[in-house]
């Protein structure tokens, strides 16, 4: 399992790197900003009260997580949002939504049937005595 997921992350960034990238409020704010459209690095930096190198570092992490794409336009580095990795995270969690919903359905059916049976048995018992 572990080996497999390592191989996997070599090809595409794993969910882990996505979550790591999302764990920082500034990086989330950068992504939010990019939802409005691609922007050059300078413009992104000016939207935040942190240093330019700090923003560069955040952008680098976001790029490594494939959450943003970078291309050059003249002398500007322009960043574009890529929401694909987020879908992978969501589909992973979706699995458990389905799992627990169906487990609880099973639990309900089982317990209600058992409870009705036990009550019926108790009722008969009372009648007898």
């Amino acid at each position: 399992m572990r080996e497999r997921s390592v191989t996997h992350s070599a090809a595409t960034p794993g969910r882990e790197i996505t979550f790591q990238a999302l764990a920082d409020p500034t990086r989330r704010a950068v992504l939010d900003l990019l939802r409005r459209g691609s922007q050059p690095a300078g413009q992104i930096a000016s939207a935040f009260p942190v240093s330019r190198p700090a923003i560069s570092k955040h952008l680098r992490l976001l790029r490594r997580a494939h959450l943003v794409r970078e291309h050059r336009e003249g002398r500007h580095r322009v960043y574009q949002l890529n929401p694909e990795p987020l879908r992978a995270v969501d589909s992973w969690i979706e699995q458990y939504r389905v799992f627990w919903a169906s487990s609880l359905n099973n639990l309900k059916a089982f317990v209600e049937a058992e409870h009705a049976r036990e009550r019926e048995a108790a009722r008969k018992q009372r009648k007898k005595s």
Partner: protein
Amino acid sequence: MSTKGVTPEHDEIVSEMHIAAPPERVFKALTDPGELKQWFSSPDCPVKMWEMDPRLDGAYRYSTEKGSIIVNGVSEFECHGHITEFDPPRVLAYTWYANWHDDSTRRTLVRVELTAQEQGTHVKVTHSGLSNLPIARKDYSGGWPGVVEMLKKFIEQ
């Protein structure tokens, strides 16, 4: 019944259900291995084994036959952990290590809360730790809020 998405505060999912039986009856189904084997199963992946030592720190383990579904390359599912909260008939919580997770050694937590209602029991299951990122959680304490809104926004966009 409702299964909400990840809550805004944590990397967790919440699933809720009303059951027309008292909490004691529900708690038994949650902790008796013989009963677990009957309901904690599905046609997709029939349960092979269910063991639980129903007490605080007690271990549990379940495994399935080869199922018709594949998660992360796994089709014979195995999951185990320890009971971290045992308060019959109100709370049962256990750690959840599963062989279909990216990293099967990382801890996730399942907490089941039972609340007595006039017509039975309200059951609430919270499964947390799903992002499997203890390092980030420690380093960026308070950094989680908003992740889920982001996810939602992006996915719905």
